[in-house]
């Protein structure tokens, strides 16, 4: 009996001191939960945790708990699931293209609604190319963090072996096909041992296709995210070109090409050229067993690539104090020095011009000039495909692209079907 009573007293005391502790902590500290996607390999969590720790050291009144939640799409699912469950994160890095979805779900708050108009000047510090799908309806909803464009990587050894200039990648579609033909190697039995080019068609098929569409001179959606132009003749031509790479010119594998294994295909010398995110730069640099080149994507009517990657969003459920703290955190994470360091660590494009003027970045570019390719390509960049109900619309386009590259539908039919589906999905938004 005494034992029991003692235990009770102890428990009560512990409870009391806990409440007191919590009470004082609440009074002084703002707690922020921060969801971020694992978008690059290696010790990403360590880098992010290191950054948040540094932030907390400089801002002792703010406590940030970073939670890594999978790839972009999973992080969005997690954030929205948590929102429905009543406990969304305070701040999260999600795809810039999820902006309309997040607004429709009433999940996020615009930076303009947190800050005074005179405080909004900081948004001018970022590359305008990245801000284009961070703003809509005159408000800023996202702040660029780990942003990218698609770039082309090539194997210099393979270029040399094929009698090509290893310093120059294909500049336009014709060169891509011509060089691809020289780079495609077959053994005595006719089996391909090395493909010319690999453009992945799973995971981010719509993104890769959008690059081709842009180059062919067509945009796939309007600025309000309420209409798509998947079946525009120029878009159909672009998809036809992608299909032709495999079936007519035979410089690329038939069927879909897996996003996750494409970098590995490149390291294994199974493809001489690959298109993928600039976010892969550090990965390629570490793992490619041969010298490689990096260049802008080839042009058709014009050069170009969609932008990509993630923005910082602040969730509506946060209290005013939490929102303010979140803005402080976002501004700190995207400051010139941090943006430069993040770009160097991961290969993502440092999101603001002044980041490229920091000594660390200048030093890095001097040693590794290709790091600037993605930045320079920004001049030709177009916002990534983004509409209301974004995941569903991109899924329709992904399906169309896969149907075309697997040969089960003609590009024109596939894109017409996708357009019809997109119109059905968007009918409740397009007023």
């Amino acid at each position, binding site marked *: 009996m005494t034992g029991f009573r003692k235990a009770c007293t102890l428990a009560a005391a512990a409870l009391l001191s806990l409440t007191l502790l919590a009470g004082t902590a609440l009074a002084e500290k703002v707690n922020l939960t921060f969801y971020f996607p694992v978008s690059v390999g290696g010790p990403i969590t360590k880098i992010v945790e290191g950054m948040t720790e540094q932030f907390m050291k400089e801002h002792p009144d703010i406590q940030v708990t970073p939670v890594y939640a999978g790839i972009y799409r999973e992080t969005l699912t997690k954030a929205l699931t948590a929102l429905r469950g009543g406990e969304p994160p305070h701040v999260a890095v999600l795809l810039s293209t999820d902006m309309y979805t997040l607004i429709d779900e009433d999940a996020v708050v615009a930076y303009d609604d947190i800050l005074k108009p005179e405080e909004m000047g900081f948004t001018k510090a970022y590359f305008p190319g990245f801000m284009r799908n961070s703003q809509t309806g005159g408000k800023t909803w996202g702040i660029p963090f780990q942003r990218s464009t698609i770039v082309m990587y090539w194997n210099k050894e393979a270029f040399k072996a094929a009698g090509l200039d290893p310093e120059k990648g294909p500049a336009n579609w014709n060169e891509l096909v011509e060089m691809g033909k020289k780079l495609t190697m077959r053994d005595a039995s006719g089996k391909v041992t090395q493909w010319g080019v690999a453009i992945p068609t799973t995971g981010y098929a719509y993104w890769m296709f959008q690059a081709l569409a842009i180059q062919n001179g067509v945009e796939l959606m309007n600025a309000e995210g309420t209409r798509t132009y998947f079946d525009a003749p120029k878009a159909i031509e672009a998809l036809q070109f992608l299909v032709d790479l495999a079936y007519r010119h035979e410089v690329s594998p038939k069927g879909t090409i897996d996003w996750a294994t494409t970098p590995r295909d490149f390291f294994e010398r199974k493809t001489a050229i690959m298109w993928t995110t600039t976010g892969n730069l550090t990965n390629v640099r570490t793992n490619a067993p041969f010298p490689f080149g990096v260049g802008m994507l080839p042009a058709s009517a014009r050069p170009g690539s969609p932008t990509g990657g993630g923005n910082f969003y602040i969730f509506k459920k946060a209290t005013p104090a939490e929102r303010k703290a979140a803005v402080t955190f976002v501004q700190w994470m995207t400051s010139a020095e941090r943006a430069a360091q993040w770009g160097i660590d991961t290969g993502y494009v440092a999101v603001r011009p002044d980041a490229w003027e920091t000594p660390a970045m200048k030093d890095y570019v001097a040693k590794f000039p290709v790091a600037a390719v993605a930045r320079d390509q920004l001049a030709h960049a177009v916002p990534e495909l983004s509409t209301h109900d974004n995941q*569903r619309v991109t899924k329709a386009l992904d*399906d169309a692209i896969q149907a075309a590259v697997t040969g089960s539908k003609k590009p024109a039919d596939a894109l017409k079907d996708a357009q019809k589906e997109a119109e059905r999905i968007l009918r409740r938004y397009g007023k």
Partner: protein
Amino acid sequence: MPPAFRSPATMRTIHAWLLLLPALAFIAAFTHVPAVNTFLHSFFLDGRGGAPAQFVGLEHYQYLLEDEVFRKALVNNLLFASGTIPLSIGLAMTMAFLVNAGLAGQSVLRLCYFVPTVLPMIAVANIWLFFYTPEYGLLEQIRGALGFTGVNWLGSESTALPCVIAVAVWKDAGFFMIFYLAALQQIPPSLAEAAMLEGASRLYYYRRVVIPLLMPTTLFVLVNATINAFRMVDHLFVLTQGGPNNASSLLLYYIYEVSFKYWDTGYGAALTMVLLGFLALASIGQFGFLDRKVHYR
């Protein structure tokens, strides 16, 4: 307590209910109530951003009829079931025979067959991804050495589903083998002796004596295999994400996409009702089996 409640029969009924109550409460809360709610929910369209849901009657069910992705997922799921069920059961039975035949190293054999049950599907799917990778994946390395031309296993609409089926069979067969093995070891040796005296051949013995004796196990395994055929989607997350062009999408995976990626939970509910319909059909068969089992006990 009034005397009527003290009658032994009433007391026993109360006892029984008390014993059943916790389990029933859980099953009701997480099976029956959500099943009914799913049904009700399938007539509503979710409101975006916290707006109230809107009654749309049969609209979701009408859309089912024109939804091509749904039709594909449904056909795929039926193919998936008709592939995985017989293959995994047949292999499980074969494995059990082999492991029970006193071959050299049978405990190692048993361990090998059981490996898939222990490895989480989600992790092992990444390994299968390597096996199926074109050009340098394991399958292609082997085929290449034998002089075959390359196949893009997961990247072609015709091969993606069979690949996914193979992974599921691999996962299930070893697990089912354990049930067969247990049943086999209960068959008395005297039966074999009797059959031998009658001059029955080996094939005859297995076909006419052993396999019929295993029938109850087969039915039990069949039920589990059917459930798994509509439940197992873990590997899709890694291998194909339902692609290319939905060629390997399955019902539950599509339900996940619709409900947790597009947040169209009303339509997701309608899809779930279809899945429940299939499972109900299967369970009708199962009740028949349970009845029979009770009879010859």
